[in-house]
């Protein structure tokens, strides 16, 4: 009986030996980086000066190389960059466009030769808005794929949960889909979306411009009943009151609610009693539609709405009741391809190249697209230091970047690194895309950098 076991052990050993022999061949490749030639001094093109549609490809000089850094996602033929977010969960209807935007950009860039002689390896990971999935995806992206940076980073609770790790890993995060206070504590987040506090200020500014001075405004907030909804409502209240307007109350809508009769009753009586003349809206496009349909049902069609960036989705206007949506605005910091911007043609082309025809008219798509473009620029700028790593990329990100007009000029040279522009958007019926009510400059005053509300 023992003999059989002995035989088995021998076989196993033999197998292991053979496997080991084979394994040796494989394992030799990722050896220590050879001391490559010192990085060429040939400067990368000045980002600001780069011509719009194809930022690097004309110049992309063959001699401009950086050593491989497999631990930071830079291999001999690829640069790995990750995206985390919700592709099939409850917020997929906005976040998936963001991923599509980045993917479209990288498809285009790879078609045009990539960067530094390498192709972008874009790795989107779906967390279904679930913290446990996000933990796994983060591990995969940072420890297995060893990405050099993240473009996009799921919901706010996921930002919260990953913040210590992102800091430890020195991992730059470009363009998370929302700016929350916790991101402003870290040195790794490069937001190109305005902070909730700024968005609330912007909303107040827009309201003021509409009703003839903020002091005439009587505002009612409607928020999704999640922490960020409370947060946005608190900012709006702060902004409106600071300007001398009246903030009546915040109505909450449960996530997944399909009708809002009770909220509308309260809104109606507030309109009747207190003369509410503006509504601010927080939530996903789905929740926004529910509120708008509810307003249409009870006939509140003459009170304009302004919502946060989640509301600035095409479906709000294409699917919502026209009598309400024609007075609805959504705040966002990006311009879509139908606006007269440099990147218009490129966004459209890249979208169809990646198989996402028509999505170039979506603001979240533009956001993702810009994330990719900024990453591309930063990579090339970081390469100038002779080393492409998370650290050098982080340093490279602390500067200003070309935006091809998709958003206002980015300047992350001073902390905090977040966008200082935004506008109120609505649908342009002619093109099917989003159009800003006023240029970014119109709202520039709203960006006062005041935020951080303590509650409790």
């Amino acid at each position: 009986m023992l003999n059989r076991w002995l035989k088995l052990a021998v076989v196993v050993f033999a197998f292991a030996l053979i496997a080991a022999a084979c394994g040796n061949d494989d394992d030799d490749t990722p050896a220590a980086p050879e001391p490559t030639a010192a990085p060429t001094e040939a400067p990368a093109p000045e980002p600001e000066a780069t011509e719009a549609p194809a930022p690097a490809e004309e110049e992309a000089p063959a001699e401009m190389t950086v050593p491989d850094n497999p631990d930071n996602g830079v291999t001999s033929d690829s640069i790995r960059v990750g995206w985390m977010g919700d592709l099939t969960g409850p917020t997929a209807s906005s976040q998936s466009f963001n991923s599509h935007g980045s993917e479209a950009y990288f498809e285009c860039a790879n078609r045009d030769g990539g960067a530094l002689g390498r192709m972008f390896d874009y790795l989107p990971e779906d967390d279904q808005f679930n913290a446990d999935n996000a933990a796994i995806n983060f591990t995969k992206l940072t420890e297995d794929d060893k990405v050099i940076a993240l473009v996009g980073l799921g919901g706010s609770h996921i930002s919260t949960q990953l913040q210590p790790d992102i800091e430890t890993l020195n991992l730059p995060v470009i363009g998370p889909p929302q700016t929350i206070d916790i991101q402003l504590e870290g040195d790794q987040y490069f937001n190109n979306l305005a902070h909730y506090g700024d968005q609330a200020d912007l909303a107040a500014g827009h309201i003021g411009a509409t009703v003839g001075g903020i002091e005439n405004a009587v505002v009612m907030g409607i928020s999704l009943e999640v922490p960020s909804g409370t947060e946005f409502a608190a900012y709006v209240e702060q902004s409106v009151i600071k300007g001398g307007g009246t903030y009546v109350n915040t109505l909450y809508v449960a996530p997944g609610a399909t009708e809002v009769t009770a909220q509308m009753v309260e809104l109606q009586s507030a309109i009747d009693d207190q003369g509410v003349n503006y509504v601010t809206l927080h939530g996903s496009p789905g929740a926004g539609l529910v509120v708008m349909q509810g307003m249409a049902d009870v006939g509140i069609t003459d009170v304009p709405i302004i919502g946060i960036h989640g509301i600035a989705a095409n479906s709000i206007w294409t699917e919502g009741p026209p009598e309400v949506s024609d007075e609805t605005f959504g705040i966002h910091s990006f311009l879509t391809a139908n606006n007269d911007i440099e990147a218009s043609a490129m966004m459209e082309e890249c979208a169809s190249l990646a198989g996402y025809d028509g999505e170039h008219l979506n603001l979240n798509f533009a956001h993702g697209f810009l994330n990719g473009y900024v990453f591309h620029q930063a990579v090339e700028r970081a390469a100038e230091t002779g080393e492409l790593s998370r650290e050098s990329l982080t340093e490279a990100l602390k500067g200003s970047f070309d935006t091809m007009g998709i958003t206002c000029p980015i300047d992350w040279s001073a902390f905090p690194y977040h966008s200082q522009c935004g506008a109120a958007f609505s649908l342009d019926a002619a093109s099917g895309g989003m159009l800003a009510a006023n240029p970014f400059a119109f709202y520039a005053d709203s960006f006062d950098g005041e935020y951080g509300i303590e509650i409790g």
Partner: protein
Amino acid sequence: MLLAFGNFTADPSVNLQLLIGGLALGAIYAVVALGFVLVYKSTDVLNLAHGEFLMLGAYFALTFLISENLNFFLGVFVLLLVMLVFGLVVHYGIMRRMVGQGFFAIVLITLGIATIIRALLLIFYGPTERARLDLLPQGSFEVGGATVRHVDLVIFGVVALCVLLFFLFFKYTRLGLHMRAVADDIEAAAAMGIDPDKVYAMTWAAAMVMAGVGGLLFGHVTGAIDRSIEAIGLRAFPAAVVGGLTSLGGSIVGGLVVGVIEQFANGHLGTKWREPVAFSVMFVVLLVRPTGLWGRKDLERV
């Protein structure tokens, strides 16, 4: 402010509006509860996938009535036909093999079905939300300062009609009689030459048609058609239980009662109280009368 209460108001028109909103919501709950009751009554299955079935109905309605732009009646016919076939598929493909399995296993297999439906809808319709349907009469009128939508009245009518039809069907048709017999005692029914398999298949088909009707109706009142509308399945549980899981008429009463209670909780206590209050009502009914207000009571002997 641990438990922040909303502002109480004594304004009668507000309460009237809440009542009307509650009844409108309750009518939808009744449609869903009717689907639960149909399946539970004859097959003893708690169908956790009913919300998904309803969602399927709503999306199919989008396809047939909006995208394909079929004539309303033709479109509805096609919709219900597709749902009926789908019901047969669910029975013959899956549920048939589950006869005799444990209660929880059967509950969970419906969960598996729900997951599959969700995935398929995501694949074929994508995550973007759609506008509500607008094929039934739109518009509204005022009663004592409160708005009543025409659609709500249509829904009331359709729900009442469905219950009446089911009642007549169960009372006066042979198949209905056989379904009731199977619900009472499957073994005796089988011994009498009633094919339980066929009856179950018909039940699933009927429930699915009901979900199709429900999806069509719900598609007219929900704010947006997206994947979150499947939650209506869970939210209608209290309605089904309060009415009694075995009573068709009970599902209407349960639906209306729960709808109104929810709406008042929403209006007077705040939206976060909605589900806790609804489920608490259900809980109290369960403790006081475990078979619901109209459910039948089975004598248990040792």
